[in-house]
């Protein structure tokens, strides 16, 4: 199925909840995924910035789902959190839920999506509280 590329915010959001902005949005993945590498300065994964498409200042929290086909799970990594702070961006790490060819690359169940995978035809829903 073809999805709108990038971020599609659902109607009625941002939803004002007390002093915070609750946002639910759909997002397609990148055309060529790069695997996430942990470390003092993590690299890779799929970065979502608060200022791009959402037009807000930062993320307090984010919850994820698997994609609409049930083949890929999205894991939110708040790699700039840890001091009680809102973060300007989060990183999404994608995990295969099947052993199959997805997005043009071979995937193995319960492992990270392969580098070079085209995730632009997969859509993931997120819920977040933002500032």
């Amino acid at each position: 199925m073809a999805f709108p590329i990038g971020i599609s915010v659902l109607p009625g959001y941002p939803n004002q909840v007390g002093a915070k902005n609750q946002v639910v949005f759909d997002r397609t993945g990148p055309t060529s995924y790069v695997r996430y590498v942990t470390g003092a300065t993590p690299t890779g994964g799929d970065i979502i910035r608060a200022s791009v498409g959402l037009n807000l200042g930062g993320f307090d929290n984010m919850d994820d789902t698997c994609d609409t086909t049930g083949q890929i799970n999205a894991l939110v990594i708040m790699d700039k959190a840890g001091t009680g702070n809102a973060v300007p961006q989060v990183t999404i790490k994608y995990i295969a839920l099947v052993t199959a060819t997805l997005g043009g690359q071979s995937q193995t169940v319960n492992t990270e999506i392969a580098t070079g995978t085209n995730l632009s035809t997969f859509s993931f829903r997120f819920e977040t509280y933002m500032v």
Partner: protein
Amino acid sequence: MAFALGNKVLPGYLRQVGDKIEIVFDHTGPTSYTQFSTSTGLGGEVIQASALGIGGFDFVEVTRDTTGQVGVAVVMVTSGSGNAVKSFTLVYTALVTATVGGQSQTINTQIATATNLSTFSWRIKALCV
């Protein structure tokens, strides 16, 4: 443990949260599970918004079952274009290798077809319209 079958909404819900509706409920599984197919989007256990008296789901979160033996993923099959959905699908996964619900299960794989999940309960939180 025996649970109330179907959906049991917690006290105080439905709750207005800004312009949206939040609901938290316990859910027992089906008496005979059908595996979800990623190629067709069919199978799994479909939860309809109308069964809860609401119009649609914006977002859904779910826990493991009360015994920690069965995990569950939410698949919003008809989402993807910034739309609320009329239903979502629960896909159950074994967290143990054992006989569960009358069928043999393998850890980290989908619950077997025909498994009786009616004695298992999951807590679900949904943001609704």
